[in-house]
């Protein structure tokens, strides 16, 4: 299917499919070289940081959840932790464990969605999971069942799967009894079995040779595979507290996107998400998940964007193990939330959304009213690195036809599971070979 490459051409995809939100890409090729690559995020801006000003400190968990229907818990957790930091309170013990358990539900749901519905069809040259169901119905039925258990866990702790209603600064409105959590244990055992099968399924896929050299950034916790809290680390030696995020990272506006581009000050673009998380934390995986990773061919680090599907499957298995541990050790706290009192201050909170590091900062006045809010989602942090991957893919494959090149470029984007809805404050591919 290869054809004589024209010296100049333009490739464009006006609306990327199987990503969350709206975006496009445009690639300009001149004299056989990639001249410009743009991920155009035309997702309309919604101005969350603007209208958070003047709201009460208890509102961001509900309001910022609405930034993303796929990872609302990530927004709720980063918001709560940033505001609690501003109010100088710390949520720990069983309340922290319940937050981690809620987050496990979101990781199971979101990772299973991306693995099967957004990413897996690419490996078979198919358009959708529904098409995949025609050739491998058991795999799709298993995915639906696993995703459903993730959603049921979200409902058990959070009240509902999309935009949970039970999260507040200080903890929860109502906490489950030990009996309620133990009753859910058989489903988590079933989820663990299915997640282990998913690792085997994706380990058997064919992966193109491609490794990326981006600096990896993720949270790291002294004992856990960090999700809810930890220090911010990179494989270039960065090791900082959450509160130091603004000192080391900056967001820049670019003309072609409603998402802001993030970079490490005085250095370059970087990558957050499964590859970064795994490469910086694989020694923190639960032993069963670590064994599954090794059996699936992963080393201690992973730099292949295509193999991110294996990392997501390993992470899904890991959070099933984590959820089981939390359920087994759980004793209901005395109160559903700790008492918080308004006071003036600025607080920072970073957690690991399924797509990567999600940072929030809030400044409150003495009545607890928000004076300023900053939200840095994973996809805007990744956008420059995704553009780099695209440029590399196109440069190495200029002999492909426009259609093949376009399809490959879209796959290169979906490898990173960009969440465009999140990124705005993200994509059409236009390839211009002029």
């Amino acid at each position: 299917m290869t054809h004589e490459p024209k010296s100049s051409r333009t490739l464009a995809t006006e609306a990327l499919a199987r990503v969350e939100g709206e975006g496009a890409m445009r690639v300009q090729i001149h004299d056989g070289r990639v001249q410009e690559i743009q991920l155009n995020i035309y997702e309309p801006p919604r101005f969350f940081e603007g209208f958070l000003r003047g709201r009460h400190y208890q509102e961001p968990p509900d309001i910022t959840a609405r930034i993303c229907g796929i990872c609302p818990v990530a927004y709720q957790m980063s918001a709560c932790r940033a505001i609690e930091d501003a109010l100088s309170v710390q949520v720990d013990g069983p309340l922290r464990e319940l937050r981690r358990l809620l987050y496990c539900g979101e990781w199971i749901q979101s990772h299973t969605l991306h693995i099967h519905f957004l990413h897996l069809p690419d490996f078979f040259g198919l358009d959708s999971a529904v098409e995949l169901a025609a050739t491998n119905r058991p795999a799709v039925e298993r995915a639906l069942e696993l995703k459903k258990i993730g959603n049921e866990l979200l409902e058990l702790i959070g009240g509902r799967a999309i935009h949970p209603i039970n999260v507040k600064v200080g903890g929860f409105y109502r906490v489950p009894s030990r009996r309620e959590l133990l009753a859910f244990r058989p489903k988590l055992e079933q989820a663990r079995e299915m997640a282990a099968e998913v690792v085997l399924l994706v380990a058997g896929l064919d992966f193109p040779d491609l490794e990326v050299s981006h600096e990896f950034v993720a949270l790291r916790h002294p004992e856990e595979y960090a999700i809810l809290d930890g220090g911010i680390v990179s494989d270039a030696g960065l090791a900082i507290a959450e509160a130091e995020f603004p000192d080391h990272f900056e967001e820049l506006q670019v003309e072609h996107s409603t998402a802001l581009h993030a970079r490490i000050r005085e250095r370059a673009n970087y990558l957050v998400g499964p590859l970064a998380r795994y490469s910086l934390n694989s020694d923190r995986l639960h032993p069963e998940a670590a064994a599954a990773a090794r059996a699936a061919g992963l080393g201690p680090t992973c730099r292949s964007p295509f193999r991110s599907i294996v990392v997501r499957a390993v992470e899904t298995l890991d959070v099933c193990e984590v959820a089981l541990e939390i359920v087994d050790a759980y004793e209901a706290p005395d109160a559903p939330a700790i008492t918080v009192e308004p006071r003036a201050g600025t607080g920072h909170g970073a957690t690991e959304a399924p797509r990567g590091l999600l940072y929030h900062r809030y400044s409150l006045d003495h009545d607890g009213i928000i004076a300023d809010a900053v939200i840095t989602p994973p996809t805007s942090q990744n956008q420059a690195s995704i553009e780099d991957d695209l440029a590399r893919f196109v440069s190495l494959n200029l002999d492909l036809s426009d259609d093949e090149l376009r399809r490959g470029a879209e796959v290169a984007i979906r490898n990173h599971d960009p969440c465009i809805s999140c990124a705005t404050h993200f994509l059409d591919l236009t390839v211009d070979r002029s």
Partner: protein
Amino acid sequence: MTAPSGRPKLAVWKFASCDGCQLTLLDCEDELLDVAGSVDIAYFLEASSAAAAGPYALSLVEGSITTPHDVERIREVRRQSEVLVTIGACATAGGIQALRNFTDVQELLSIVYANPSFLSTLDTSTPIADHVKVNFELRGCPIDRRQLLEVIGAFLAGRKPQIPNHSVCVECKLRGNPCVLVAHGTPCLGPVTQAGCGALCPGFDRGCYGCFGPMESPNTASLVGALAAAGMTEDDIERVFHTFNAWNEPFRSAPHHQEVS
């Protein structure tokens, strides 16, 4: 309007939104493969890169209208659709992003972006029905998946969807929840909010915060009085009405409707 398979063609469209309402379709895990067997999912970018041309028998529209481009796009979606159903608070009320309607959008732009001039956006976020004829509005932030299946089933059968428009209070009574407002003095929008969630928040010892928007005949003036009596300040009351359905009357002006006693 039917695919070569003979099944009616379904399209799912996104405007300004969080993707949560269209995700609700993928969250129908027990029914999804059956739905995919009874309709032809002709356009659903979040789930499939295959995009079949219209016309479509049923279009589900998520999101609000916030850009000049989207004003044109929704008209084209309407032209291509026999039945158009809006799903969620963004599509039916303008969503949380309709908070811009109460303020100066240029000021919001300058808070978030260094160069606001790169952006093309309207001063308002408005519901789809402000722009084109809508056959049915399904409420919620997010929508309820049982209600979504009812609406899809109803339109495919050519009947009216069975979606109640009474208040959340009725759902609390059906669930046997004690009234959080009466029993605990917890501020609650349940008396003026449309049912559909199953009275989730009161079931979690929390007051309703109005995700499904105003019910059919809400007495917001009376509730504003009760909220004030429960200890909410004027600012608190304005904030509680002005969230995900802020632009939907009477939530829009409710903070100024205090009953004269």
